[in-house]
């Protein structure tokens, strides 16, 4: 049989309880420790408005992270997330600004552009056999460039009110993007952990040969996963568009790496096989809390980048230590 993942993967998590809600406990611990530490270090940290701020700031990366989770589950990778985010936002903005179409078109356009880019990624990877790293790296450049071409490098400003509400509205005092972020988290988690679609994604990453032998349509599934990832990038592009009220071709630069970091921090196996949307949510929050805390403490953004890298390694290291002790 081909492509059995077990050589490259760490020992699997304990199945001794219903693990459809499982997250990497170490990451939750890191999150709690961060919250405690920052509460002590800064008087501005512990407040409802600040926590809402954190959720708002995390929403874009979070949605992208969920897309990355699906793709990584099947031992793939999507480096084009940030660029597709930008392109989707640009097309959405232009559809109402330049083409004067009604506002629902912007929403459909964002999602459609994202899904379409994902489709191309998926087909090139699954059917033409080009490695995911290469395909999505190519899409990273093409999508980014296309966005710049369409807008001549300038942001496209001024969206209709309903779109702006999506990004800046605060029903019950909670920013709209936060609602959308959490809703997507719930739906994505359900799909990945509770449906056949999600299970097959993880099995493909675990042992592709076994998946084929058991009748799973691996190629078709792979394509679908990239479409999902692209769709979520499109949604993130819509959220960004709504938040800043403009289609910005330079949006989302380097976001894909942060999104992937969130997924890994949360317990998704970088080599595929085991993935959790809930975990990615925790991972994204860890980074969001860290960034927010360091901002409140006015720590230079150079140190912030070091901190994010260090936290990732710390969380994964703690995980390895625990596995070695067999404590899970």
């Amino acid at each position, binding site marked *: 049989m081909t492509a059995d993942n077990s050589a490259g993967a760490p020992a699997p998590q304990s199945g001794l309880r219903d693990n459809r809600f499982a997250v990497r406990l170490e990451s939750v611990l890191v999150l709690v420790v961060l*919250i405690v530490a920052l509460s002590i270090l800064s*008087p501005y940290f*512990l407040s*409802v408005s600040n926590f809402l701020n954190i959720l708002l700031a995390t929403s874009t990366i979070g949605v992208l992270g969920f897309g990355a989770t699906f793709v990584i589950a099947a031992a793939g990778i999507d480096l084009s997330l940030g660029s597709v985010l930008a392109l989707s936002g640009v097309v959405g903005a232009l559809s109402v600004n330049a083409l004067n179409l009604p506002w629902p078109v912007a929403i459909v356009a964002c999602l459609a552009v994202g899904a379409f880019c994902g489709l191309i990624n998926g087909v090139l990877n699954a059917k033409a056999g080009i490695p995911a790293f290469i395909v999505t790296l190519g899409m990273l450049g093409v999508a980014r460039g296309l966005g710049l071409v369409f807008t001549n490098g*300038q942001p496209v*400003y001024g969206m209709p009110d309903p779109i702006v509400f999506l990004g800046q509205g605060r029903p019950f005092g909670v920013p709209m993007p936060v609602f959308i972020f959490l809703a997507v988290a719930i739906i994505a988690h359900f799909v990945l952990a509770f449906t056949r679609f999600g299970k097959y994604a993880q099995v493909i990453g675990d042992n592709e040969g076994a998946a084929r032998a058991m009748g799973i349509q691996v190629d078709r599934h792979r394509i679908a996963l990239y479409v999902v990832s692209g769709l979520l990038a499109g949604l993130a592009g819509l959220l960004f568009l709504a938040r800043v009220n403009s289609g910005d071709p330079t949006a989302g630069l380097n976001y894909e790496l942060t999104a992937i970091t969130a997924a890994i921090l949360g317990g998704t196996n970088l080599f595929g096989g085991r993935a959790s949307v809930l975990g990615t949510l925790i991972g994204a929050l860890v980074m969001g809390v860290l960034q927010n805390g360091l901002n409140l403490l*006015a720590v230079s953004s*150079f140190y912030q980048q070091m901190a994010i890298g260090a936290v990732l390694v710390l969380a994964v290291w703690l995980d390895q230590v625990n596995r070695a002790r067999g404590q899970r």
Partner: protein
Amino acid sequence: MRIKTITIGLSAALLAAALAGPTSAQDKPVYGVLLKTLSNPFWGAMEQGIQDGTKEAGVEYFLQAVESDQAAEPQLNTCNTMLQRKPAVMITAAINSTILLPCLKQANEMGIPVVDLDANLDHEIAEKAGVKIAFTIGSDNTAAGGQGADFMAEKLKGKKGSILVIEGLAGNITGQKRAKGFADQLAKVAPDLKVVASLPGDWDRQKAANITNDTMTANPDLVGIFCANDTMALGAVESVYAAGKGGEIVVIGVDGNSDAVKSIKAGRLTASVAQLPYLVGKQAVEKAKEVLAGKTVDKFTYVQTLVLTKELMDAGNDPALQYVK
């Protein structure tokens, strides 16, 4: 099991604390300053001016920046976070003309005046979005471009040839003003010097170097290069010297930052239209204090720019030189 218990216990305690609300008290007013990035000496000089300004004004400040001058959304997130600290005023240098508007609107709602530092905001759009800007302060970028054109025309008097303009980050107002100011003035004072290419260098040294190489190849009669900032000019200069044309092509930058100054003194970069970011920062703080005291200030303050050349600096007697950091 134990880890799980600790986790749950801590989380519950913190949730309770969070709902109890924030506490903060300040005696001196604290100014919030948001720059683009600190990886450019231009902003370093501005920070120094702000530091000195706040010291003289007897106020405190906290300053933030993001990792690059292209990180727009992170700057918006940082801006939002800064509002948590309820500063007395928000002095912001926006990465592009529209990104900070949602945050600045919230600042308005919180009663915090907003200062457009370095004139990055698009005022028409800001007005439409309902954002009130207390005042704008920066260099007159259009005039700076024009000064560059005047100098170029003077230096190349009597010559004919091609001119390359390297713009800033695509979509950035500062870069646009400088490039346009240069091109418009050059057409007036030196019709024999033709601008053959005007390309975005994204404030990037490497990009500018590549653009210069390509343009020199396509236009062997290139006699002058105008770059919308010093970082790009320094990149262009290296390409010129690498091609063996050092000294034959006039290269002008904008900003007057310390790297550019060193290069001009060493005779490589021809000139730089120095902004005086130190002065901009200092005066921004002074005027902010006036606004908070209820006085009226000019809506637009333009701090002078100065064409820095080797001769000028060697002579050393121009009073504006003290503000060149």
